[in-house]
């Protein structure tokens, strides 16, 4: 798509079909609403923190919907929308940021690793997982998500290199949202693009408009297919923008200009898919389209309402949970601390 949501063909990549385009748009609409809802809850103090991905929905959704059921997703803290798009329960997806527990969903159920806070450390997990799957004879690929800043970490390098040497079916999707908290990209790297990093590992690098869900989907799909076929892992750089503050406790006015945000808001990924769906009539005639889009909005509202309500209803987590899953069984000294805490709580 161009900036205005007009279709642009590319000789190498196949555009998603109409149904998939509709899915992408719907997931973005839900993702955007989710971002807004979660940010509001954070402002109200009902979440401990929320790192919003408003503006980055195309990159996350485009990437995630390119995965097969059996594939694995390795998200970072920024990628709650990716989890929701993957089918994780939106309330469980917020457990981390609610402060109830470190992770709220069963990773095996949706084949989503816990959201990863230490930067770039999830990338090698993805490589190892696909190695194991291959040993077990399963055709499993993985998508590892990271930010532009995270590419500076040694862990990113090691993971890229292991993936290339092992020919692992992993796609590293780098959401270049131009900022690592307050640090702009030119203080992060002197490379022409982050996709150029692939050269030094002998793998393919793709540079894609990260606000174009169709393009991200097409590129990640192709990269995954190549990787599955044994043609090696890839870095996909999705160029996008973090419209909101880093988290609700950030102060972006200290380091960036509102005009920069405005520039990107104009390039909102949702406007573009909507324009494409409308102009090409992919959801049907004008009326049908309106109806379909309204249904997406309604779905999004339902998700937001669900999040609000279920969050309000949940109680405090049980402190006994502190002890049960440190080891496979509770060792004696920890059992003693458990008893002591229970005693304290009884007294209080």
């Amino acid at each position, binding site marked *: 798509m161009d900036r205005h949501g007009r279709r642009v063909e590319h000789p190498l990549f196949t555009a998603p079909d109409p149904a998939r385009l509709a899915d992408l748009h719907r997931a973005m609409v839900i993702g955007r609403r989710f971002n807004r809802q979660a940010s509001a809850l954070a402002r109200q103090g009902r979440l401990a*923190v929320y790192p919003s991905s408003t503006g980055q929905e195309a990159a996350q959704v485009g990437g995630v919907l390119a995965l097969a059921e059996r594939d694995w997703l390795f998200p970072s803290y920024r990628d709650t929308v990716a989890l929701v798009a993957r089918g994780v329960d939106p309330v469980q997806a917020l457990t*981390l940021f609610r402060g*109830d527990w470190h992770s709220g969903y069963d990773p095996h159920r949706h084949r989503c690793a816990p959201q990863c*806070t230490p930067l770039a450390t999830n990338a090698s997990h993805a490589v190892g997982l696909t190695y194991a799957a291959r040993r077990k004879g399963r055709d499993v690929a993985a998508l590892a998500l990271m930010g532009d800043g995270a590419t*500076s*970490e*040694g862990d990113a390098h090691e993971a890229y290199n292991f993936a290339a040497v092992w020919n692992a079916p992993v796609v590293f999707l780098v959401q270049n949202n131009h900022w690592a908290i307050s640090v702009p990209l030119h*203080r992060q790297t002197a490379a022409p693009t982050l996709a150029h990093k692939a050269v030094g590992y002998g793998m393919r690098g793709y540079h894609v408009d990260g606000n174009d869900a169709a393009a991200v989907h097409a590129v990640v799909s192709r990269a995954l297919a190549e990787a599955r076929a044994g043609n090696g892992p890839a870095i996909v750089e999705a160029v996008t923008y973090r419209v909101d503050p880093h988290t609700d406790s950030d102060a972006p006015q200290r380091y960036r200009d509102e005009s920069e945000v405005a520039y990107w808001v104009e390039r909102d990924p949702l406007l573009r898919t909507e324009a494409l769906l409308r102009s090409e009539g992919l959801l049907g005639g004008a009326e049908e389209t309106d109806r379909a889009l309204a249904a997406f909005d309604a779905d999004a509202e339902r998700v937001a309402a669900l999040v609000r309500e279920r969050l309000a209803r949940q109680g405090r987590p049980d402190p006994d949970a502190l002890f049960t899953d*440190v080891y496979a069984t509770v060792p004696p*000294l920890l059992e003693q601390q458990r008893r002591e805490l229970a005693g304290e709580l009884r007294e209080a």
Partner: protein
Amino acid sequence: MPPAEVSMGAALNRALRDALAEDPDVVVYGEDVGPLGGVFRVADGLSGEFGEERVFDSPLAESGILGTAIGMAMYGLRPVVEMQFDAFAYPAFGQVVSHLAKTRNRTRGAVALPVVVRVPYGGGIGGVEHHSDSSEAYYTHTPGLRVVTPGTPADAYSMLREAIACDDPVVFLEPKRRYWSGEAVELPVRTEPMDRPVVRRPGTDVTLVAYGPMVETALEAAETAAGEGRSIEVVDLRQLAPLDDAVLVESVRRTGRAVVVHEASVFGGYGAEIAARVTERCFHYLEAPVLRVGGLDVPYPPPKLEGYHLPDAGRVLAAVDRLQWEAEWVEGAR
């Protein structure tokens, strides 16, 4: 007019500012310490004031930050680097242990590394995972490092100035939950040399050993105990390693009882060193074993459960109560 209240964060900020102003060899860098002033704003305003050659954002890579600081120090600068949070210092662990701590020794004194590694550490701020580790034990067991942590704004100012002026590498642990704690103090201020523990509050019945974030908690416990007729002496260790144990030993020999408190998990924590050392040096003065109060032996909990993990004045006082004040206790224990 009494001096105004200064928060620990503001005191640290002022210490950085004064050090930058006095010594052109001081540079301050790390993740987000430039225009943003750090996520806790400890470097607030400094890059504007001193220019981005001296206060700046580096690429996002902790080992690289530490490694470049080592190189800078080899050529005469005094870098002050920030690790954004405790757990995010771990990627630099190899540089810290194998180079920062050892280079003076490896070169028989030819190369000193006056590097300050600032680490906002500890919990109590409702941070999600990896934002609340108490990592002091990893550093205090590493010879060659000075490990210090201030318990008050005045100490924060004075100790950071001293750390920057020090020719040894200093891991400067900032108790992040106390950034907003205030004290009426006129800056600049110089307190006791950082390598000596101080008695924060004198007492006669029991010595309560604390540092960093737990100093405030210990004082609170002492205050409560005083109301109940028990006199608690609070020792603030300040420099955890290398430790000068004279003040501590003197105190415990006098009181005959001791409790050490920290946020970190008890098992293998820094409190074990204090308990073992005090016991060894004060054995025949002790009326009861030295008790440790600390975090549970579990990964740092999520925000809604951190209250169960972190020691508070109540837990400290409960430990004090277990110090065998009654003769019968001894019998019961057998």
